[in-house]
């Protein structure tokens, strides 16, 4: 979970490192801790540390973690030679290590040798059939090949065993969304909400999926989840504010002619007000756009 605090810290360190200040190692640690994908920067600054013997020895045993991090970043940046070098260093230090074996297989994957990578992963799984990372890599490989159905199949199989793995549920939800299978995606998001009920992002994603599914009941539910997002973010999430407005408009349309008596509440007018205020403060030139949008939704006062 990346919180506002983490984000500010990351931005501060990033600009400091980019402008030649120190703190590269702290930056790399933070990136690793937050699991952020900044491969180009990790590659650049990680190599600067690894190539400087003095800096390298100052981080002690963490050196090997850094080699791994840089290797993966290098694969992500398509500098396969660098990745190769890093893995060589690691396998010299840790021969027979499963973790290095995983890196080797990932390198094959980055090269695009799908079959060889597949074989490598399979042999790793034979040694340890409960290796979660390898299972996940297989899913990712299916995804990289473009075979999303196979990815779903693999992932479902994985989730049958490791059913408390939130990352996997999230991945499955995202794949389903990309295939427009919203009902299934909704199930995955429900699972995530159950596991971490105070994370607003899951509420938001669930609401999005429900809104997309359509239908009066779903949209009413979606509005509730947008409301939950607003509550958990202290009203700072613009998407949730828009969501409430859109839902109200959609409910108004769908419920036309039907029972008018259920009370509307004033959530949407409040949301519109907050949106206007926010735009006035942060992007005054976009304000006319917002007011016209709200007008078409018949929400503007």
């Amino acid at each position, binding site marked *: 979970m990346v919180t506002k605090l983490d984000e500010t810290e990351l931005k501060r360190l990033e600009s400091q490192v980019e402008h030649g200040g120190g703190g590269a190692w702290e930056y790399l640690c933070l990136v690793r801790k937050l699991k952020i994908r900044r491969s180009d920067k990790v590659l650049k600054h990680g190599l600067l540390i690894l190539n400087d013997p003095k800096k390298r020895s100052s981080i002690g045993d963490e050196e090997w973690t850094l080699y791994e991090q840089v290797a993966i970043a290098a694969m992500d940046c398509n500098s396969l030679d660098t990745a190769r070098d890093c893995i060589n260093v690691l396998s010299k230090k840790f021969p027979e290590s499963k973790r290095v074996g995983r890196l080797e297989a990932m390198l094959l994957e980055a090269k695009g040798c799908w079959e060889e990578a597949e074989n490598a992963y399979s042999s790793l799984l034979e040694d340890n059939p409960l290796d979660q990372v390898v299972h996940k890599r297989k899913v990712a490989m299916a995804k990289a090949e473009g075979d999303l159905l196979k990815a779903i199949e693999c992932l479902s199989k994985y989730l*049958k065993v490791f*059913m408390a793995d939130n990352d996997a549920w999230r991945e499955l939800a995202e794949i389903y969304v990309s295939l427009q299978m919203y009902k299934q995606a909704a199930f995955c998001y429900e699972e995530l909400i159950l596991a971490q009920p105070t994370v607003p992002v899951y509420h938001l994603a669930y609401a999005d999926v429900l809104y997309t599914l359509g239908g009066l009941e779903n949209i009413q*539910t979606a509005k509730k989840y947008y409301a*939950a997002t*607003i509550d958990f973010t202290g*009203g700072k999430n613009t998407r949730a504010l828009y969501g*409430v407005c859109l839902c109200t408009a959609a409910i108004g349309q769908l419920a036309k002619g039907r029972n008018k008596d259920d009370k509307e509440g004033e959530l949407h007018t409040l949301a519109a007000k907050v949106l206007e*205020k926010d735009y006035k403060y942060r992007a005054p030139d976009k304000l006319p756009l917002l007011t016209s949008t709200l007008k078409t939704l018949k929400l503007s006062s």
Partner: protein
Amino acid sequence: MAEDLVLDTTIRDWVLIPLSVVMVLIGILRYFVSKLIRTFQNPDGKIVKEGQVVIRARNLRSSADFIPPKSFRARRTYYSNEENGILHVPKGQAPNPQAQMFSDPNMAMDMMKKNLSMIIPQTLTFAFVNFFFSGFVAAKIPFPLTQRFRSMLQNGIDLSTVDVSYVSSRSWYFLNLFGLRGLFSLILGEENAMDDTQRMMQMGGFGFDPSKSLGAEKDSLDIVQHDWVLPKFEQRAEAVLRKLAK
């Protein structure tokens, strides 16, 4: 305080202080040794799966109110229906943990290690203390105590005329054993907070039986009352936004 004992200062320099320092050092040493012999074994696939099922079911139970009623009911059926719910354990199939323990040498080995890592240092320390520091009146508790505490505080010296608040060196060892926990948690971090009594409890509960926890989880899931909280969030959000809009 009329009958104050006069104690030699060398007792302080050669018993009280060394004994306390030795206790602290042994505590630290034990921490690192137990860290070294801790093993990471690959658990059995079935146990992993059942553990994960329990976690997921627990999540469902604790935050059931966050998902719509329909989704909750579907999930509950999935977990706990009588035919093929994943929490449902068919009768008679539950493995006997004792038998399992004997069939799996690793488990017994692990238990032995745990046992040994606790008992051996304990015995060694005690023998060490007994050998070097036995038979002294080493300390005095700065507050009065009743006669009942005599056997606790003056273990190792048989003098019934000495005031109860005087402490023998062996009893000082025991006091240290229990009282230094706070200091250890400061210098070793919270991992050490698990003290001996807890470890003993854990030992009693070895042979963790997943099917039992599955059954327990099923029972508590069956009685969960679902009360969807999301409608309340509309009001909460209104309150939040009203504050912002001001």
